[in-house]
Protein backbone atom coordinates (compact mmCIF):
# COMPACT_ATOMS: atom_id res chain seq x y z
CA UNK A 1 0.00 0.00 0.00
CA UNK A 2 1.12 3.55 -0.80
CA UNK A 3 0.46 6.96 0.75
CA UNK A 4 -2.14 8.63 -1.48
CA UNK A 5 -0.54 12.05 -0.97
CA UNK A 6 3.20 11.53 -1.45
CA UNK A 7 3.15 8.19 -3.24
CA UNK A 8 5.75 6.57 -0.97
CA UNK A 9 5.28 3.24 0.82
CA UNK A 10 2.61 3.78 3.49
CA UNK A 11 4.40 1.46 5.91
CA UNK A 12 7.73 3.29 5.62
CA UNK A 13 8.48 6.73 6.99
CA UNK A 14 6.18 9.18 8.69
CA UNK A 15 3.02 10.24 6.84
CA UNK A 16 1.48 12.29 9.65
CA UNK A 17 2.01 15.51 7.68
CA UNK A 18 0.50 13.86 4.58
CA UNK A 19 -2.57 12.81 6.56
CA UNK A 20 -2.97 16.34 7.94
CA UNK A 21 -2.58 17.89 4.49
CA UNK A 22 -5.12 15.45 3.04
CA UNK A 23 -7.84 17.16 5.10
CA UNK A 24 -7.63 19.96 2.53
CA UNK A 25 -6.43 18.06 -0.53
CA UNK A 26 -7.73 15.23 -2.69
CA UNK A 27 -5.57 12.12 -3.06
CA UNK A 28 -2.98 12.21 -5.86
CA UNK A 29 -1.52 8.68 -5.92
CA UNK A 30 -3.36 5.41 -6.16
CA UNK A 31 -2.83 3.68 -2.80
CA UNK A 32 -2.74 0.30 -4.54
CA UNK A 33 -0.23 0.88 -7.33
CA UNK A 34 1.12 4.44 -6.70
CA UNK A 35 0.17 5.60 -10.22
CA UNK A 36 -0.64 9.30 -10.34
CA UNK A 37 -4.43 9.50 -10.52
CA UNK A 38 -6.50 11.79 -12.74
CA UNK A 39 -8.11 14.07 -10.19
CA UNK A 40 -10.99 16.46 -10.81
CA UNK A 41 -11.94 18.83 -8.00
CA UNK A 42 -15.40 20.48 -8.11
CA UNK A 43 -16.89 22.93 -5.57
CA UNK A 44 -18.55 20.20 -3.52
CA UNK A 45 -16.27 17.21 -3.99
CA UNK A 46 -13.63 15.40 -6.04
CA UNK A 47 -13.07 12.29 -8.11
CA UNK A 48 -9.74 10.52 -8.50
CA UNK A 49 -9.22 7.76 -11.05
CA UNK A 50 -6.54 5.14 -11.49
CA UNK A 51 -6.57 3.49 -14.89
CA UNK A 52 -6.06 0.12 -13.17
CA UNK A 53 -7.92 0.47 -9.86
CA UNK A 54 -10.93 2.57 -10.68
CA UNK A 55 -12.42 5.79 -9.34
CA UNK A 56 -12.63 7.13 -5.79
CA UNK A 57 -14.89 10.07 -4.93
CA UNK A 58 -15.79 12.33 -2.03
Amino acid at each position, binding site marked *: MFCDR*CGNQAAEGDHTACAAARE*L*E*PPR*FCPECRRRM*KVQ*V*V*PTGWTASCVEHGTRTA
Partner: protein
Amino acid sequence: MSEILDRARSQVLNDGVGLDEAQILEVLRLPDDALPELLQLAHDVRMKWCGPEVEVEGIVSLKTGGCPEDCHFCSQSGLFASPVRSVWLDIPSLVEAAKQTAATGATEFCIVAAVRGPDQRLMTQMREGVKAIKAEVDIQVAASLGMLTQEQVDDLVDMGVHRYNHNLETCQSHFPHVVTTHTWEERWGTLKMVRDSGMEVCCGGILGLGETLEQRAEFAAQLAELDPHEVPMNFLNPRPGTPLGDQPVVEGKDALRAIAAFRLAMPRTILRFAGGREITLGDLGTRDGLLGGINAVIVGNYLTTLGRPATSDLELLQDLKMPVKALSATI
Protein backbone atom coordinates in the same frame (compact mmCIF):
# COMPACT_ATOMS: atom_id res chain seq x y z
CA MET B 1 -3.57 55.70 18.51
CA SER B 2 -1.21 55.61 15.56
CA GLU B 3 -0.89 58.49 13.16
CA ILE B 4 -1.39 56.41 10.03
CA LEU B 5 -4.71 55.10 11.34
CA ASP B 6 -5.86 58.67 12.05
CA ARG B 7 -4.89 59.64 8.52
CA ALA B 8 -6.67 56.61 7.09
CA ARG B 9 -9.77 57.40 9.06
CA SER B 10 -10.17 60.81 7.49
CA GLN B 11 -8.76 60.01 4.05
CA VAL B 12 -10.27 56.57 3.39
CA LEU B 13 -13.25 56.26 5.69
CA ASN B 14 -14.53 59.80 5.39
CA ASP B 15 -13.39 60.77 1.89
CA GLY B 16 -13.17 57.39 0.13
CA VAL B 17 -9.64 58.01 -1.11
CA GLY B 18 -7.39 54.92 -0.92
CA LEU B 19 -3.99 54.95 0.77
CA ASP B 20 -0.91 55.38 -1.40
CA GLU B 21 2.08 53.02 -1.44
CA ALA B 22 4.00 54.70 1.39
CA GLN B 23 0.89 54.79 3.55
CA ILE B 24 0.11 51.14 2.81
CA LEU B 25 3.62 50.23 3.94
CA GLU B 26 3.08 52.07 7.20
CA VAL B 27 -0.06 50.02 7.77
CA LEU B 28 1.77 46.77 6.99
CA ARG B 29 4.37 47.74 9.59
CA LEU B 30 1.90 48.42 12.39
CA PRO B 31 2.66 46.47 15.57
CA ASP B 32 0.45 43.58 16.69
CA ASP B 33 -1.19 45.67 19.40
CA ALA B 34 -2.58 48.04 16.74
CA LEU B 35 -4.14 45.15 14.81
CA PRO B 36 -7.62 45.22 16.42
CA GLU B 37 -7.97 48.93 15.69
CA LEU B 38 -6.69 48.46 12.13
CA LEU B 39 -9.15 45.64 11.44
CA GLN B 40 -12.02 47.67 12.87
CA LEU B 41 -11.13 50.60 10.61
CA ALA B 42 -10.88 48.35 7.55
CA HIS B 43 -14.26 46.89 8.46
CA ASP B 44 -15.79 50.36 8.85
CA VAL B 45 -14.39 51.35 5.45
CA ARG B 46 -15.85 48.25 3.84
CA MET B 47 -19.27 48.84 5.48
CA LYS B 48 -19.35 52.49 4.44
CA TRP B 49 -18.13 52.13 0.84
CA CYS B 50 -19.38 48.62 -0.03
CA GLY B 51 -22.13 47.81 2.44
CA PRO B 52 -22.80 44.67 4.45
CA GLU B 53 -23.42 42.26 1.55
CA VAL B 54 -20.97 39.49 0.85
CA GLU B 55 -20.49 38.19 -2.68
CA VAL B 56 -20.32 34.42 -2.77
CA GLU B 57 -18.60 32.58 -5.60
CA GLY B 58 -17.74 29.05 -6.62
CA ILE B 59 -14.86 28.16 -8.94
CA VAL B 60 -14.11 25.13 -11.04
CA SER B 61 -11.25 23.96 -13.18
CA LEU B 62 -12.32 23.23 -16.77
CA LYS B 63 -8.81 22.19 -17.76
CA THR B 64 -6.44 21.13 -14.99
CA GLY B 65 -2.66 20.72 -15.08
CA GLY B 66 -0.15 20.50 -17.91
CA CYS B 67 0.29 24.27 -18.17
CA PRO B 68 3.37 25.37 -20.17
CA GLU B 69 4.05 28.33 -17.85
CA ASP B 70 6.35 28.23 -14.81
CA CYS B 71 4.59 30.22 -12.07
CA HIS B 72 6.68 28.96 -9.17
CA PHE B 73 3.75 28.53 -6.78
CA CYS B 74 1.57 26.51 -9.13
CA SER B 75 0.97 22.77 -8.97
CA GLN B 76 -0.59 22.90 -12.44
CA SER B 77 2.58 23.82 -14.28
CA GLY B 78 3.72 20.96 -16.49
CA LEU B 79 7.31 22.03 -15.89
CA PHE B 80 7.53 20.84 -12.28
CA ALA B 81 7.42 17.38 -10.71
CA SER B 82 3.97 18.06 -9.26
CA PRO B 83 1.61 15.10 -8.81
CA VAL B 84 -1.24 17.02 -10.51
CA ARG B 85 -2.16 15.35 -13.80
CA SER B 86 -3.76 16.96 -16.80
CA VAL B 87 -7.54 16.48 -16.99
CA TRP B 88 -10.54 18.14 -18.69
CA LEU B 89 -13.99 18.52 -17.17
CA ASP B 90 -16.87 17.54 -19.47
CA ILE B 91 -19.81 19.88 -20.08
CA PRO B 92 -22.43 17.92 -18.06
CA SER B 93 -20.08 17.95 -15.06
CA LEU B 94 -19.44 21.66 -15.57
CA VAL B 95 -23.17 22.38 -15.54
CA GLU B 96 -23.58 20.18 -12.45
CA ALA B 97 -20.82 22.13 -10.68
CA ALA B 98 -22.59 25.40 -11.57
CA LYS B 99 -25.85 24.00 -10.16
CA GLN B 100 -24.19 22.95 -6.92
CA THR B 101 -22.60 26.39 -6.65
CA ALA B 102 -25.93 28.16 -7.23
CA ALA B 103 -27.54 25.94 -4.60
CA THR B 104 -25.27 27.51 -1.96
CA GLY B 105 -26.74 30.94 -2.79
CA ALA B 106 -23.63 31.95 -4.75
CA THR B 107 -24.14 34.45 -7.57
CA GLU B 108 -20.80 33.94 -9.29
CA PHE B 109 -19.40 30.88 -11.00
CA CYS B 110 -15.87 31.17 -12.35
CA ILE B 111 -14.58 28.74 -14.97
CA VAL B 112 -10.80 28.40 -14.86
CA ALA B 113 -8.28 26.76 -17.18
CA ALA B 114 -4.58 26.09 -16.59
CA VAL B 115 -3.22 27.54 -19.82
CA ARG B 116 -0.98 30.35 -21.03
CA GLY B 117 -3.95 31.50 -23.05
CA PRO B 118 -6.90 29.76 -24.68
CA ASP B 119 -6.61 27.72 -27.87
CA GLN B 120 -9.47 26.92 -30.22
CA ARG B 121 -10.45 23.79 -28.31
CA LEU B 122 -10.75 25.69 -25.04
CA MET B 123 -12.74 28.53 -26.59
CA THR B 124 -15.15 25.99 -28.12
CA GLN B 125 -15.55 24.23 -24.75
CA MET B 126 -16.19 27.63 -23.15
CA ARG B 127 -18.83 28.59 -25.67
CA GLU B 128 -20.66 25.30 -25.21
CA GLY B 129 -20.21 25.30 -21.46
CA VAL B 130 -21.38 28.87 -20.86
CA LYS B 131 -24.39 28.31 -23.11
CA ALA B 132 -25.35 25.13 -21.26
CA ILE B 133 -24.96 26.82 -17.86
CA LYS B 134 -27.02 29.83 -18.90
CA ALA B 135 -29.80 27.53 -20.17
CA GLU B 136 -30.07 25.68 -16.86
CA VAL B 137 -28.63 27.69 -13.99
CA ASP B 138 -29.38 31.13 -12.57
CA ILE B 139 -25.85 32.35 -11.94
CA GLN B 140 -23.38 34.80 -13.43
CA VAL B 141 -20.48 33.28 -15.30
CA ALA B 142 -16.91 34.53 -14.97
CA ALA B 143 -13.79 33.10 -16.58
CA SER B 144 -10.06 32.81 -16.00
CA LEU B 145 -8.25 31.48 -19.06
CA GLY B 146 -4.90 33.24 -19.01
CA MET B 147 -3.67 35.80 -21.50
CA LEU B 148 -6.11 36.76 -24.25
CA THR B 149 -6.07 38.17 -27.75
CA GLN B 150 -8.51 40.94 -28.63
CA GLU B 151 -10.54 38.43 -30.64
CA GLN B 152 -10.83 36.14 -27.62
CA VAL B 153 -11.87 39.06 -25.43
CA ASP B 154 -14.64 39.85 -27.93
CA ASP B 155 -15.68 36.17 -28.05
CA LEU B 156 -16.00 35.98 -24.25
CA VAL B 157 -18.13 39.13 -24.21
CA ASP B 158 -20.29 37.58 -26.92
CA MET B 159 -20.71 34.39 -24.84
CA GLY B 160 -22.03 36.45 -21.95
CA VAL B 161 -19.04 36.11 -19.63
CA HIS B 162 -19.48 39.11 -17.35
CA ARG B 163 -16.21 39.16 -15.42
CA TYR B 164 -12.69 38.06 -16.29
CA ASN B 165 -10.08 37.01 -13.76
CA HIS B 166 -6.43 37.51 -14.53
CA ASN B 167 -4.19 37.86 -11.50
CA LEU B 168 -1.04 39.94 -11.52
CA GLU B 169 -0.04 37.50 -8.74
CA THR B 170 2.55 39.79 -7.16
CA CYS B 171 4.06 43.25 -7.60
CA GLN B 172 5.94 44.20 -10.76
CA SER B 173 9.36 44.17 -9.05
CA HIS B 174 8.96 40.66 -7.62
CA PHE B 175 7.21 39.05 -10.60
CA PRO B 176 10.40 37.99 -12.47
CA HIS B 177 11.41 35.96 -9.40
CA VAL B 178 8.13 34.07 -9.52
CA VAL B 179 7.43 33.65 -13.25
CA THR B 180 9.95 33.56 -16.10
CA THR B 181 7.85 32.33 -19.05
CA HIS B 182 5.84 35.55 -19.39
CA THR B 183 5.97 39.06 -17.98
CA TRP B 184 3.95 41.17 -15.60
CA GLU B 185 3.50 43.64 -18.45
CA GLU B 186 1.92 40.95 -20.66
CA ARG B 187 -0.59 40.27 -17.91
CA TRP B 188 -1.27 43.99 -17.58
CA GLY B 189 -1.93 44.09 -21.34
CA THR B 190 -4.67 41.45 -21.09
CA LEU B 191 -6.21 43.32 -18.17
CA LYS B 192 -6.37 46.52 -20.22
CA MET B 193 -8.17 44.73 -23.06
CA VAL B 194 -10.63 43.18 -20.64
CA ARG B 195 -11.29 46.56 -19.05
CA ASP B 196 -11.91 48.20 -22.43
CA SER B 197 -14.32 45.43 -23.45
CA GLY B 198 -16.74 46.28 -20.67
CA MET B 199 -16.24 43.00 -18.83
CA GLU B 200 -15.62 43.44 -15.12
CA VAL B 201 -11.95 43.09 -14.19
CA CYS B 202 -11.04 40.65 -11.43
CA CYS B 203 -7.37 40.87 -10.52
CA GLY B 204 -5.49 39.92 -7.40
CA GLY B 205 -2.69 37.66 -6.41
CA ILE B 206 -0.98 35.54 -3.84
CA LEU B 207 0.76 36.73 -0.69
CA GLY B 208 3.69 34.77 0.68
CA LEU B 209 5.68 34.34 -2.55
CA GLY B 210 8.82 35.62 -0.86
CA GLU B 211 7.94 39.28 -1.38
CA THR B 212 9.08 41.87 1.15
CA LEU B 213 6.63 44.11 3.03
CA GLU B 214 7.70 46.93 0.70
CA GLN B 215 6.75 44.75 -2.26
CA ARG B 216 3.44 43.87 -0.67
CA ALA B 217 2.74 47.61 -0.44
CA GLU B 218 3.91 48.04 -4.04
CA PHE B 219 1.48 45.33 -5.13
CA ALA B 220 -1.49 46.90 -3.33
CA ALA B 221 -0.67 50.26 -4.93
CA GLN B 222 -0.39 48.71 -8.39
CA LEU B 223 -3.73 46.97 -7.97
CA ALA B 224 -5.27 50.24 -6.79
CA GLU B 225 -3.97 51.89 -9.96
CA LEU B 226 -5.65 49.19 -12.05
CA ASP B 227 -8.81 49.69 -9.96
CA PRO B 228 -10.34 46.24 -10.51
CA HIS B 229 -13.96 45.46 -9.76
CA GLU B 230 -12.75 42.53 -7.66
CA VAL B 231 -9.49 41.61 -5.96
CA PRO B 232 -9.08 37.97 -4.92
CA MET B 233 -6.52 37.53 -2.14
CA ASN B 234 -4.79 34.20 -1.98
CA PHE B 235 -2.23 33.09 0.58
CA LEU B 236 0.42 30.67 -0.58
CA ASN B 237 -0.38 27.06 0.16
CA PRO B 238 3.04 25.58 -0.67
CA ARG B 239 2.53 22.76 -3.18
CA PRO B 240 4.74 19.68 -3.28
CA GLY B 241 7.07 19.61 -6.26
CA THR B 242 6.88 23.35 -7.02
CA PRO B 243 9.84 25.73 -6.58
CA LEU B 244 7.95 27.37 -3.69
CA GLY B 245 7.02 24.02 -2.14
CA ASP B 246 9.07 24.71 0.99
CA GLN B 247 8.17 28.38 1.38
CA PRO B 248 6.79 29.13 4.87
CA VAL B 249 3.10 30.08 5.00
CA VAL B 250 2.12 33.67 5.77
CA GLU B 251 1.61 34.26 9.49
CA GLY B 252 -2.02 34.80 10.47
CA LYS B 253 -1.46 38.30 11.83
CA ASP B 254 0.48 39.35 8.73
CA ALA B 255 -2.33 38.03 6.57
CA LEU B 256 -4.91 40.07 8.50
CA ARG B 257 -2.71 43.18 8.33
CA ALA B 258 -2.44 42.69 4.57
CA ILE B 259 -6.19 42.25 4.16
CA ALA B 260 -6.85 45.48 6.06
CA ALA B 261 -4.11 47.31 4.12
CA PHE B 262 -5.56 46.18 0.77
CA ARG B 263 -8.99 47.37 1.89
CA LEU B 264 -7.58 50.75 2.89
CA ALA B 265 -5.86 50.97 -0.51
CA MET B 266 -9.08 50.06 -2.37
CA PRO B 267 -12.11 51.16 -0.35
CA ARG B 268 -14.70 50.24 -3.00
CA THR B 269 -13.43 46.99 -4.50
CA ILE B 270 -14.86 43.55 -3.92
CA LEU B 271 -12.10 42.06 -1.75
CA ARG B 272 -12.38 38.31 -1.89
CA PHE B 273 -10.98 35.63 0.37
CA ALA B 274 -9.62 33.07 -2.09
CA GLY B 275 -7.22 30.14 -1.67
CA GLY B 276 -5.03 29.40 1.31
CA ARG B 277 -7.09 31.08 4.01
CA GLU B 278 -7.72 27.75 5.76
CA ILE B 279 -3.97 27.10 5.96
CA THR B 280 -2.83 30.60 6.92
CA LEU B 281 -5.65 31.64 9.20
CA GLY B 282 -7.36 28.45 10.33
CA ASP B 283 -11.10 28.26 10.98
CA LEU B 284 -11.28 31.45 13.03
CA GLY B 285 -9.50 33.46 10.35
CA THR B 286 -12.46 33.61 8.02
CA ARG B 287 -14.38 35.45 10.70
CA ASP B 288 -11.51 37.84 11.41
CA GLY B 289 -11.11 38.58 7.71
CA LEU B 290 -14.81 39.26 7.21
CA LEU B 291 -14.59 41.68 10.11
CA GLY B 292 -11.40 43.23 8.75
CA GLY B 293 -12.10 44.32 5.20
CA ILE B 294 -13.13 41.20 3.25
CA ASN B 295 -16.55 41.31 1.55
CA ALA B 296 -16.52 38.26 -0.70
CA VAL B 297 -15.64 34.60 -0.42
CA ILE B 298 -14.97 31.59 -2.59
CA VAL B 299 -17.03 28.81 -1.08
CA GLY B 300 -16.35 25.10 -1.29
CA ASN B 301 -13.32 23.65 -2.97
CA TYR B 302 -10.64 25.39 -5.01
CA LEU B 303 -9.09 24.22 -8.28
CA THR B 304 -6.78 21.49 -7.03
CA THR B 305 -7.17 21.77 -3.25
CA LEU B 306 -10.16 21.62 -0.93
CA GLY B 307 -11.81 24.38 1.08
CA ARG B 308 -14.00 24.16 4.12
CA PRO B 309 -17.64 23.21 3.41
CA ALA B 310 -19.77 26.02 1.94
CA THR B 311 -22.22 25.56 4.82
CA SER B 312 -19.57 26.63 7.36
CA ASP B 313 -19.04 29.92 5.55
CA LEU B 314 -22.77 30.51 5.04
CA GLU B 315 -23.51 29.87 8.71
CA LEU B 316 -20.75 32.30 9.64
CA LEU B 317 -22.28 34.98 7.40
CA GLN B 318 -25.60 34.47 9.13
CA ASP B 319 -23.90 34.75 12.49
CA LEU B 320 -22.26 37.99 11.43
CA LYS B 321 -25.55 39.29 10.00
CA MET B 322 -23.93 39.82 6.64
CA PRO B 323 -26.41 39.08 3.85
CA VAL B 324 -25.28 37.10 0.82
CA LYS B 325 -25.41 39.44 -2.17
CA ALA B 326 -28.43 38.49 -4.28
CA LEU B 327 -28.34 37.96 -8.03
CA SER B 328 -30.64 40.92 -8.64
CA ALA B 329 -28.21 43.17 -6.80
CA THR B 330 -25.33 42.18 -9.04
CA ILE B 331 -26.96 42.62 -12.45
